[in-house]
């Protein structure tokens, strides 16, 4: 048995938490982007760490994968300047 796997109870608890968070997004946070994205990030963290077992892998693997991915995703935020320019500085195209 691979010691990487952990307990099935943990998997089921994480599964339930992810579903509860999804319900929270739909019934409580609908329409509020930032809180929904925070909840989605928590769901993603749980999925990556527990379902994908990254929690039990070597820390060097986590360091190799996570920071660079987050960096690329964060850098994509540069698009907002242009999209706000379109919204505020040019007439709307009909």
């Amino acid at each position, binding site marked *: 048995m691979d010691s990487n796997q952990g307990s099935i109870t943990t*998997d089921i608890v994480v599964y339930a938490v992810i579903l509860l968070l999804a319900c929270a997004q739909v019934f409580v946070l*609908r329409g509020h982007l930032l809180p929904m994205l925070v909840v989605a990030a928590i769901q993603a963290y749980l999925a990556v760490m527990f379902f994908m077992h990254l929690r039990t892998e070597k820390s*060097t693997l986590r360091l190799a994968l996570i920071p660079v*991915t987050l960096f690329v995703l964060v850098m994509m935020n540069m698009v907002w300047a242009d999209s706000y320019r379109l919204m505020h500085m040019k007439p709307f195209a009909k």
Partner: protein
Amino acid sequence: MSEANLAAGHGADVMEARPFAIPSKKLVMWLFIISDACTFGAMLFAYGYIKNAAADWPHPFENSSIMNALLMTFILVTSSLTILIATRHAKGGDKSKALMWTFITVVLGLAFAALHLKEWFGLIGEGVRLFQNPWGAPMFGASFFAVTGLHLAHVVSGAIALTVVALGYKRGRYNSDDLEIWSLYWHFVDLVWMFVVPIVYLMNASAG
């Protein structure tokens, strides 16, 4: 410290230490996952860019569509759990249970795809096309179908891949490591959906 394992005779193979203490094929899957995460990130940012820059972005998703999206989320997250159970059984050497749970995962994935197509046909029936719709910004259709279509393609190809790997595992061609590697892909597909739902569906829910 490398493990040099010289085979006798010609063509000696030198076994290097596994990168990050995982099989190379598993590392390849992780690298694919992070590249695919950047792809989906770019698609979702592009969706947000277009939505932000549009004056009259449609909000077509009524309660029935939102509940459909929640049901799809439930199905996909459950399929993540079932492939996890399948991998657990595979690692424990129980081939038949591993196969059973893998095929349950595939069925759930196909159910997700069917519900997704139902949603698509509903929107198409209401007049949504790639570059026009009855409600507002013409780019809504193209951006919605692009984001959800890319995800749907990943779900369908993941279902096909899991089927191929499961059948190969049954024949002895693949082992539990291979099933675990493709379970990583499946979890990733589920993870992406957790971002697609709030950005594409919940931010475009109709007020009524």
